[in-house]
């Protein structure tokens, strides 16, 4: 626990504050993507060609990297949201909130390391791989 003089701010630092900050940032980011994503999907009502052209940008290496970021943001938001619910509704939630924070960090890493590799595999092959 950070021991700072409690003057000028209510936020004392520590894991709880940073998960709160990250929860807001990832929430806003995912929300803006959701707007874009409904708009791009709406192109299926325009024409198959229009939809396929826009979806092709999702398959480029740079956007693939952004997709890894999106999945990472959603996964953090989901895990931390479950932690918040546990703190609110589970009688022992507040006592174990810090352990749960490190728990979700571990789960996030275990999913994201192979996940990122798998999502970028096609881009890596397209850029560096040799096709027989």
């Amino acid at each position, binding site marked *: 626990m950070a021991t700072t003089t409690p*003057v000028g701010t209510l936020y004392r630092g520590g894991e709880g504050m940073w998960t709160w900050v990250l929860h807001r940032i990832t929430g806003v980011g995912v929300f803006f993507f959701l707007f874009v994503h409904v708009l791009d999907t709406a192109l*299926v009502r325009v024409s198959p060609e229009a939809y396929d052209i826009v979806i092709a940008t999702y398959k480029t290496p740079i956007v693939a990297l952004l*997709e890894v970021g999106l999945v990472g943001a959603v996964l953090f938001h*989901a895990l931390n949201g*479950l932690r918040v619910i546990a703190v609110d509704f589970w009688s022992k939630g507040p006592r174990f909130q810090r352990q749960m924070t490190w728990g979700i960090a571990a789960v996030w890493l275990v999913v994201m390391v192979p*996940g990122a590799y*798998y*999502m970028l595999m*096609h881009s890596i092959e397209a850029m560096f791989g040799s096709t027989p």
Partner: protein
Amino acid sequence: MSAPSIETPRSLSRRNAQRSNFELYSWLFMRVSGIVLVFLVLGHLFIMNFLDGGVQRINFAFVAGRWASPFWQVWDLTMLWLAMLHGTNGMRTIINDYAERDQTRFWLKMVLYVSSAFIILLGTLVIFTFDPNLG
């Protein structure tokens, strides 16, 4: 080290102001919709980004194949509505926290509500009126 003095959170002049349980229901909605969205959104991301070559296999025909099934239509419709309402309510909280002027707060929320309503209606229309034989 003395504790900082914290002012009473509700000023006396507003004590008789009308109260409603809206914020309680909004708080509860975030948790209930959040639990449902964990399954819907993580399932969606897993199918779209990891299964069978991920995003590389997505095109018009792929969408047509999925929305031929009522199961995925209901999945996507539920996900659309819950995610948009969850996200809009989150943005409302953030605007209330950071926009200090009454006018700024009011107009930011108006822009938020109008654009959210547009996206929800557009998405709903697309799912219900999708035509696999288009083009």
